[in-house]
């Protein structure tokens, strides 16, 4: 099983670095990719086609990682702010408008308790050629995929996991 996972998704690797504000933290929104989460992602896709929610949903980014056992976890990319700076944790990092340096965030290592991951990346809505929002997935993780970038087929297999659960994703290889 492990050898199969190694080939299909890559060897488990430790994060290149863990920032101080990430240590011992985990995103409040951390969720396993299963049927229930897939249903939520499909619902979000429907909402993203509405005028009311389109812009709010486009402004959010999600991060995902596959742990050593092959389980995929997903979270909203959350700000690192914690008490006493904030009355509650879990604030989504809103991409765009602000320069990314303005917001320290909880990155990929916080999805897997700073341990091993095979592959990790981002998930977000983006406009397609018809100006419709689509889920787009990539394997961009500065912590897990920078030194040893995944192969295209490994990213495709992650996308297939989402599609098997009924979540229509487009792969971004750049």
């Amino acid at each position, binding site marked *: 099983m492990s050898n199969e996972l190694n080939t299909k998704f890559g060897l488990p690797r430790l994060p290149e670095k863990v920032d101080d504000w990430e240590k011992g933290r985990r995103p409040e929104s951390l969720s396993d990719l299963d049927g229930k989460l897939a249903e939520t992602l499909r619902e979000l896709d429907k909402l993203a086609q509405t005028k009311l929610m389109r812009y709010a949903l486009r402004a959010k980014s999600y991060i995902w990682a596959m742990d050593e056992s092959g389980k995929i976890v997903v979270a909203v990319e959350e700000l690192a702010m914690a008490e006493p700076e904030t009355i509650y944790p879990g604030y989504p990092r809103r991409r765009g408008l602000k*320069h990314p*340096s303005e917001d320290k965030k909880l990155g990929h290592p916080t999805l897997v308790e700073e341990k091993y991951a095979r592959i990790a990346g981002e998930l977000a809505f983006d406009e397609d050629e018809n100006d419709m929002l689509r889920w787009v997935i990539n394997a961009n993780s*500065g912590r897990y995929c920078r030194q040893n970038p995944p192969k295209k087929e490994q990213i495709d297999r992650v996308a297939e996991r989402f599609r098997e659960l009924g979540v229509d994703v487009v792969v*971004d290889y750049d």
Partner: protein
Amino acid sequence: MSEDIKILISRLGTFRPSDRSVLGRHFDDASTRKVAVDAVKEFVQIWERADWLEAYSIERIGKWIAKYQPSDIVTLFDVWSGSPNSDAKAALKRGIELGRVERLEHA
């Protein structure tokens, strides 16, 4: 900083496929090229002034530029990042190097 540059900096922050399309169109058009160049430089310089660095967010921009943009644009950023005197410029330089390799592989 002009509004056009601010908007492109937002695009550089998300860097999704549609963001890259917009940036690419700016590089393609002689009348908007300078805005795109200035936006990338400003994006890196803001990181230089910050108290932390997400190097990968710069590296992937350098990689994309080297992979898809004309050689004069690539050279411009390669020269600008020079002998990097900051981790942010070093990230841009590293991205350009990676992008050049990928471009050659796909040529």
